[in-house]
């Protein structure tokens, strides 16, 4: 792993001087495999910038529909009260920048959905207060789970042109295609943009079973029933045979 980073680093050192492009970058791997022992992982991003301006690195995970339910009390019993569905929201969102103030909002950042305040959430509900309340809970939960980090992630510079960012993926990430976006922004202009995909796959028997349950529910259901019947029969047979009635 260390060797890989070193090679990458060296490649960028050379590249950054050979090509006069405004920004260039690469990552240590394009693939994350989730197996039963998966406990989160880190990916290293290296880059070099050749022009003036601020860098923003944003990583977005596959879109999901989230349900946020508020617990309510009736006669002392807790039940599920109001629920709001947030459609097509990023399941992972991580932002790094060279801005001093991460909460900076301008037209460009808002358009590109860069930063906590600029993320757009879609619901079918019209009550703005309630939407904000539930959305805040959703973002807080995702931040607690380390799936969202939109706060004060600074980009580390190794010298004047070279920078590195460590991307953190917790163990609860969803599978799908993630995109790493690297922006170079000067004042209000987008100088350069680069996008790198990361493929998150689920591997191993657990993933196969879960796929099978959703794609072949008929066979899965039959199989569950048959396994139960056969094991019940085998247990009875073995006991009668070896232990007696």
């Amino acid at each position, binding site marked *: 792993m260390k060797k890989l980073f070193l090679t990458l680093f060296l490649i960028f050192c050379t590249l950054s001087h050979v090509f006069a492009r405004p920004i260039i970058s690469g990552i240590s791997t394009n693939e994350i495999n989730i197996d039963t022992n998966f406990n989160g992982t880190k990916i290293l991003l290296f880059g070099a910038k050749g022009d003036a301006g601020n860098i923003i690195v944003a990583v977005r995970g596959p879109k999901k529909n989230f349900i946020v339910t508020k617990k309510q009390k009736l006669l002392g019993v807790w039940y599920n009260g109001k629920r709001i569905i947030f459609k097509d929201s990023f399941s992972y969102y991580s932002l790094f920048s060279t801005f001093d103030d991460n909460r900076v909002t301008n037209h460009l950042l808002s358009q590109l959905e860069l930063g906590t305040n600029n993320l757009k959430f879609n619901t079918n509900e019209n009550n703005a207060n309630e939407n904000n309340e539930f959305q805040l809970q959703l973002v807080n939960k995702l931040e607690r789970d380390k799936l969202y980090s939109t706060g004060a992630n600074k980009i580390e510079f190794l010298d004047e042109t070279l920078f590195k960012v460590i991307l953190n993926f917790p163990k609860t990430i969803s599978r799908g295609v993630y995109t790493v976006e690297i922006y170079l922004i000067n004042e209000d202009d987008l100088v350069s943009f680069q996008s790198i995909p990361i493929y998150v796959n689920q591997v191993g028997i657990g993933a196969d079973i879960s796929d099978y349950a959703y794609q072949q529910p008929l066979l899965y259901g039959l199989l569950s029933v048959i396994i139960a*019947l056969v094991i019940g029969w085998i247990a009875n047979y073995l006991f009668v045979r070896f232990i007696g009635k």
Partner: protein
Amino acid sequence: MQIYLPIAEIPVNVLVILMLGLATGLLAGMFGIGGGFLATPFLMFIGISPAIAVSTSANQIISASASGLLAHLRKGNVDIKMGIFLMIGGFIGSTLGVSIFRILQKAGQIDIVVGITYVLFLGSIGVLMLIESVKVIVKRKYDLSFEEEAKTNENLRFQKFLNKLDNLPFKVFFPKSSISISALVPIILSIGIGILVALMGIGGGFLMIPAMIYILRMPSNIVVGTSLFQIIFIASNTTFLQAITNHTVDIVLAFLMIVSSAIGAQIGTRLGYKINADKMRTFLALLLLAVCLKMFWNLFTTPAGLYVIEILK
């Protein structure tokens, strides 16, 4: 030793699940009940979502019941004709139950409905059983009889109710049990129990057995076998429907429980002959009440987070 459950999407301790399966199997073998009433709440206590706990228990019940049924078939203690009538009602009931389950799950209220149903049924059955078994123990010890005086009125009313049942049309004769009763009675009875099977993830034995004795008036020696016979079909129907409509059967979890409960059921059947039945019944009643209290407590305690966030599938 941890294992990751692919559908429940959480890791669980294999040994805990095996012990749970063994315990439910023991109960199944000793009392002819599926043990689902114990397995489902326990799975919920260790953090498996109610929807998955209910469906996976239904799957486990199949094996415990199949294992027990074979033993009863060998002894000829099964009224297959009655079993088929109960099965028809059970199919209708459990299919209805799975649809109700689906509606409640979509509305996000399945957790609380499962919780309340458990508290009501476990509470009432547990109290009735406890009273019954304490009475038996006291009677044995002090040679008292306090049954006859108060009960005559109630008995009369119950007798009238039974007479009404006997007057219903579509009378069928069941040679094995040597009873003659309207086909509507077992069918309607098993529809009701079938709904509960799907909602609670239980076999329904602890409801079906008393109903068979008191309402259908079947001879007690063939009640357990016949109950197991119809439970297999109802639990199979429930498992299958839950798998295709709600995707809530976790085959890995079910497998661990199936293996251990099949073994437990065999041990239980053999232990059943040796252990003092009255004391065991008291123990079972206390167990029911303990689970009921825990479920009751969960309904009223303030949840850790006031907001629940889930990914819609």
